[in-house]
């Protein structure tokens, strides 16, 4: 039973909060502008409906090119049942979220989870609003609620005396806002969808073709000054002194601000020890900072280099590592199945058919988002406003409040578009820098990182080394397998994911882990863990198949028997890719499959290698089983994007550390893929399992791409490339 509970008091309360929600912060042009502001009724925290039947749907996740600002409104609109043309997206208020018991559950934007993990409550918000509109109409028309339909923005009933009655959602929105449901409706199942599953162009595209999309770097506040900041070029190092007098008289220079690090070793998002110059323009601030004498205490990092870490890793990998049963206690179940971990080394040593792998290596990589990290902060006595590069607006709001010792009620962190994210928007301290500098100078300030400072201070993707040894059975398949991966000490999971829980069922299995010392801050980097381990595991598999006399595709099909999501991908590859390991000299096909974010992604790469050893990727052919896909157009775009992103690092990347500092800090020395490098043909097959689930799509095609290319290089040349950048390989 549903009933109406409209009192003047509750109606007032709801309209007030709706207006408050819209009035917070500075208004940016967005798709929401067509909505009649002020008159719109908030049905619940997720949506408002105005009298013209325009529905504004709140997106708590950030938009960094992955399509959240389209996907979230789609999920809500599916249940609300409103024409897509009537939908506008609006930013969530981080302040309202944080101060109302995490109103939107989470504002975190990562792990390819916006659709896969968040759809139940987002669809529920739309379903709940739809049902309340039906109740409101039933009450006004004095008919039972089951006589009212809600479809495509219209409420309709066949009244016994008055015939057909109809009204728009907008006409009933205010009354619906006051309805309480006795029972929440059940959300729709796959098959009942009218909007989800369709190709829907992303809503933010037009704003991004005429320069009107606003990023943090574009925000301007009256009276704002500009700052360039620098933390110790050797991470973990600290500021000793600086000579502001030497630059005080340079044009435009206003002040120097010391950035104080509270902890001995800062957490990833803590403010790091450093200094900033504040000036009338960023150009002036950066010029003064570049020449200001600064003395640093470099700390332990100064003794660490790419070479020293390599030597340490090679030493560690030649000895037994620590046994890893699973990662975070939630993967590795397959590893544990019927396995005597302690016996595995002995089985291999006793075997007459041993395979000993060489060492594979993926180096440090950086995000280098196209927008360098930047933030604007306006710190006043009673209120703080911040715009920043973040993949979690609530977390950043809390961090600003912490930095300034303010109550979260008075801190407003405003969403903008982000110039890329790729995980880089999590472990970031640029908003703390802006807040600290604005508080120190008493004026609004914009902090922009030079590209060099961005790369030097970024939370990097850590290096991974890996090797293996195996014993083969009479059928040529592995009977026992030990893998030993060396990672970086701060986040062990990044060298375990994808290998500790690999899907290939080897009867006797052991995974070992060691870690090199490192002072470099690390963080999430699109498909963290899998992006490096996949390169190693999927070439190891080809080596094992070759050693046992198996075709690499048939090996994978055999070794994942009964694993339906993997079988679907592998069998689709067999059927559609024209798979062969013999294309003739100089050309090769290679394949790799990696599961991440609940999705199984396979890649078949076709490459040509010139006589001079230059690698050309002719085609990338993807087979993706992510279960449900709500927007196939956006899914294909993300698949291409992840693949090119990860091939950039595999082909050209690799950070170089010397005397503790990163040496290649701009695009002249940290090369990425460009138009001419892009494979002429990229095909994306979405292979959906019958037994569907929700997997993520923002990352999974990255990890299989480099090993597929490396395997293809092997079949083209006979040379196995065990480290990246591939462009440096001698072929």
């Amino acid at each position, binding site marked *: 039973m549903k009933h109406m509970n409209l009192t003047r008091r509750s109606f007032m309360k709801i309209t007030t909060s709706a207006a408050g929600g819209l009035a917070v912060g500075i208004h940016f042009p967005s798709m929401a502008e067509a909505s009649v502001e002020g008159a719109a009724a908030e049905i619940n925290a997720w949506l408002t409906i105005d009298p013209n039947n325009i529905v504004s749907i709140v997106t708590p996740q950030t938009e*960094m*090119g*992955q*399509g959240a600002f389209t996907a979230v409104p789609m999920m809500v609109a599916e249940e609300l049942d409103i024409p897509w043309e009537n939908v506008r997206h609006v930013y969530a208020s981080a302040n309202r979220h944080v101060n109302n018991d995490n109103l939107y559950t989470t504002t975190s934007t990562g792990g390819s989870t916006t659709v896969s993990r968040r759809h139940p409550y987002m669809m529920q918000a739309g379903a709940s609003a739809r049902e309340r509109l039906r109740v409101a109409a039933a009450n006004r028309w004095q008919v039972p609620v089951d006589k009212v339909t809600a479809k495509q923005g219209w409420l309709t009933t066949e009244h016994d005396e008055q015939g057909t009655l109809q009204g728009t959602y907008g006409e009933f929105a205010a009354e619906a806002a006051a309805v309480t449901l006795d029972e929440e409706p059940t959300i729709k199942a796959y098959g009942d969808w009218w909007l989800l599953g369709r190709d829907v*162009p*992303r809503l*933010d*595209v*037009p*704003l*991004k*073709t*005429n*320069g*009107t*999309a*606003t*990023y943090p*770097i*574009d925000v*301007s506040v009256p009276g704002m000054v*500009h700052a360039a900041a620098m933390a110790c070029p050797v991470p973990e190092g600290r500021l000793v002194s600086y000579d502001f007098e030497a630059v005080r008289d340079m*044009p435009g220079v206003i002040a120097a601000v010391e950035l104080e690090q509270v902890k001995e070793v800062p957490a990833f998002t803590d403010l790091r020890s450093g200094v900033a110059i504040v000036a009338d*323009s*960023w*150009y*002036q601030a950066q010029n003064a900072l570049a020449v200001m004498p600064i003395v640093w205490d470099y700390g332990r990092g100064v003794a660490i280099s790419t070479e020293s870490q390599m030597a340490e890793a090679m030493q560690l990998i030649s000895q037994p590592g620590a046994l890893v049963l699973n990662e975070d206690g939630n993967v590795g179940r397959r590893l544990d199945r019927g396995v005597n971990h302690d016996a595995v080394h002995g089985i291999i040593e006793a075997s007459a058919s041993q395979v000993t792998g060489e060492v594979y290596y993926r180096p440090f990589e950086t995000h*280098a*988002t*196209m*927008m*360098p990290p930047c933030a604007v902060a306006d710190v006043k006595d009673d209120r703080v406003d911040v715009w920043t590069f973040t993949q979690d607006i609530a977390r950043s709001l809390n961090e600003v409040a912490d930095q300034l010792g303010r109550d979260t009620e008075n801190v407003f962190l405003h969403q903008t*578009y*982000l*110039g*890329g994210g*790729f995980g880089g928007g999590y472990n970031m301290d640029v908003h703390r820098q802006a807040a600290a500098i604005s508080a120190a100078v008493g004026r609004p300030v914009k902090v*922009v990182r*030079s*590209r060099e400072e961005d790369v030097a201070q970024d939370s990097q993707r850590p290096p991974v080394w890996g090797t293996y040894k195996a014993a083969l059975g009479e059928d040529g398949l592995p009977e026992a397998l030990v893998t030993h991966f060396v990672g970086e000490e701060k986040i062990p999971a990044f060298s375990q994911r994808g290998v500790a829980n690999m899907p290939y069922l080897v009867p006797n299995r052991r995974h070992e882990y060691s870690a090199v010392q490192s002072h470099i801050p690390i963080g999430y980097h699109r498909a963290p863990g899998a992006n490096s381990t996949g390169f190693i595991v999927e070439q190891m598999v080809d080596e094992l198949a070759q050693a046992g006399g198996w075709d690499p595709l048939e090996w994978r099909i055999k070794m994942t028997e009964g694993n339906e999501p993997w079988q679907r991908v592998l069998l689709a590859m067999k059927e559609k890719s024209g798979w062969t390991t013999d294309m003739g000299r100089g050309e090769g096909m290679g394949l790799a499959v990696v599961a991440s974010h609940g999705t199984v992604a396979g890649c078949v790469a076709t490459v040509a290698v010139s006589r001079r050893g230059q690698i050309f990727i002719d085609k990338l052919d993807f087979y993706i089983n992510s279960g449900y896909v709500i927007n196939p*157009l956006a899914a294909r*775009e993300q698949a*291409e*994007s*992840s*693949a*090119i*992103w990860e091939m*950039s690092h595999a082909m050209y990347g690799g950070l170089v550390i010397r005397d503790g500092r990163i040496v290649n800090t*701009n*695009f*002249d020395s940290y090369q*990425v*893929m*460009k*138009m*001419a490098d*892009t494979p*002429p043909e*990229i095909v994306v097959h979405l292979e959906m399992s019958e037994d569907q689930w929700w997997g993520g799509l923002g990352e999974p095609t990255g990890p299989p791409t480099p090993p597929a290319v490396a395997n293809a290089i092997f079949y083209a040349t006979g040379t196995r490339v065990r480290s990246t950048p591939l462009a440096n390989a001698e072929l």
Partner: protein
Amino acid sequence: MSITLNINGQDHLIDVDPQMPLLWAIRETVGLTGTKFGCGIAQCGNCTVIVDGNAVRSCNTPVAAAAGKAIRTIEGVSEGNDHPVQQAWQELTVPQCGYCQSGQIMSAVALLEKSPDPTDNEIDKAMAGNICRCGTYPRIRAAIHRAAELSKT
């Protein structure tokens, strides 16, 4: 020093250091923020504008070198976001994060003005100075061909 910049057909008299990069004059002094900062060393193309018909990187072009010349920024490409390049970009949903796209569009506009029906090779060359970390290159290539088509009709 007083310098006159002609941006999108409008003269702006500004008082800046003549060595200041054109990018910062456009963004901070004139206030047109569609042109983006990416690397500061002319390696990423985010800052691309058209000066006297040529795509240039404004982040390392001194403002003095642009004085008196015809500068076009993303804001001057069309009034209604409907230049053939913009139409093609929308039709093929090219942008993802979008941050590099002003620069990509300016490079594409300059290319098509010189070569109305470019080959893939010409596209590779003309777009070689523009990086996109989201990897929208396949759609950029397709959209340049599509814009060439739209320009003919």
